[in-house]
């Protein structure tokens, strides 16, 4: 390839072109900087320009990201699993939201809302009657750390079949609340029905400890830890996004891996 094209011009021309170039460039910089300034002013306002903690435009893009990565999502894509011996003994406890102060594990029942006005209560024994599934996987926190951990419980898809929830499973979302309703998540049904998603009652082969959400928690390897709700009190189905604790604080609703 030849070197760049040469041109002979007068110094006046050079000056003229330089000034024009700088003016256009400066104008663009001013436009962008003022847009950014307006944006950051909106950012700090808790006004109608925000959607759950972040500006509406950002929320729109994050939701678009969800639609895009939903296309790639497949039940065939499994989280990597590890031998049981790789699982850590000291499992990190990263939060106690929704754990309650004087929670009585023995009185616990799962409140399963099949339809508005049609609620049943299940004991841990009802759930344990289903086939048990163990999973050892790399639990990933949205903060950036991860830990190989070992969990045991009932596949959510088995749970759906057992309790005649096929119709409900066709709805878009599943909502979960802690017994005190202080922590709550909403999860797309596709991710809930993923073969590695379990209603978990064991950790490292022993009953789930209190600080890990005894007696029953969610383990969903296709999501960040914020979605693995500890101590499930209520479970329901919806075609609209159920409320989500961290979503309201500005995090991505989908939070899928």
């Amino acid at each position, binding site marked *: 390839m030849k070197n760049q094209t040469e*041109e*002979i011009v007068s110094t006046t021309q050079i000056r003229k072109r330089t000034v024009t170039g700088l003016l256009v460039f400066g104008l663009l910089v001013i436009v962008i900087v003022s847009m950014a300034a307006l944006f950051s002013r909106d950012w700090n306002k808790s006004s109608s320009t925000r959607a759950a903690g972040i500006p509406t435009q950002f929320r729109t893009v994050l939701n678009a990201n969800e639609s895009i990565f939903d296309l*790639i999502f497949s039940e065939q*894509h499994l989280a990597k699993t590890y031998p049981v011996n790789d699982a850590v003994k000291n499992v990190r406890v990263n939060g106690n939201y929704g754990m309650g102060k004087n929670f009585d594990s023995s009185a616990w029942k799962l409140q399963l809302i099949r339809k508005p006005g049609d609620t049943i209560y299940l004991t841990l024994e009802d759930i344990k009657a289903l086939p048990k599934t163990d999973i050892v996987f790399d639990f990933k926190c*949205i903060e950036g750390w991860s830990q190989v951990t070992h969990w045991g419980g009932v596949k959510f898809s088995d749970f759906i079949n057992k309790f005649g929830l096929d119709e409900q499973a066709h709805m878009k979302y599943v909502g979960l609340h802690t017994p005190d309703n202080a922590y709550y998540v909403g999860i797309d049904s596709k991710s809930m029905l993923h073969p590695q998603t379990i209603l978990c009652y064991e950790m490292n082969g022993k009953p789930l400890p209190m600080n890990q959400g005894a007696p029953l928690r969610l383990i969903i390897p296709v999501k960040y830890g914020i979605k693995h709700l500890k101590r499930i009190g209520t479970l329901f189905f919806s075609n609209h996004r159920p409320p989500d604790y961290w979503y309201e604080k500005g995090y991505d609703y989908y939070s899928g891996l």
Partner: protein
Amino acid sequence: MQQRTIIKKHPLAIRWFHWINFPVLAIMIWSGLLIYWANDIYRLGWGDKTLLKFFDAPFYNTLNIPYRLAEGMSFHFVFMWVFFLNGLLYVMYLIFSKEYKLLLPNKQAWKESWQVLLHYLRIRKGMPAQLKYNAAQRIAYTVVILMGIGSLLTGLAIYKPVQFQGLVYLLGGYEWARAEHFILTLLFCLFFLVHLIQVIAAGWNNFRGMITGFEVVKKADNITEQEKASEQETNTR
């Protein structure tokens, strides 16, 4: 009337790609820092000995980094598209305009880049003959494209590790992919620093090229024949 030879150095498209990329990359690095803060485990050192921790409290506090993870993620996953699309268009432009021939390292580039370095260090006098970019620039600007691709791939691996498990495996696992993403970011910062110094050292004429597209040919004898003639004419009168 005085006249000068100018060369069309940077096509308009490249100037746009460059100046879009600059603030976008800055946003990506800043928002990445907001995310990294939540699990800031990297350091330079061995065993218990730490030479440099990434990063210390004064650094975070000065830049107002702490407790902004959600904000950082929202910025990162919005502007990633701009970074990706701008980079993709840039690479496509390089290919279709054949501009890549001026940018990719040529056969002599490895040998010559050494001579260029010696020249910058004031050890060697002249520069090897070059077209648009010298050998060191060819290498640096090609590497920085590869770094961009690397950032996108390592980023994708830690963003959707279950959906792209094969990619995570190739990068050495989830933890490694995160570390690689971080190291690439440090390299971008290093690139920026060197680039900035070089641009300042090269001076106004070179910098103007990235805005207006043209550069005045720097030759002592950059006075055209016509000009000489007209000067002579003036003198004779």
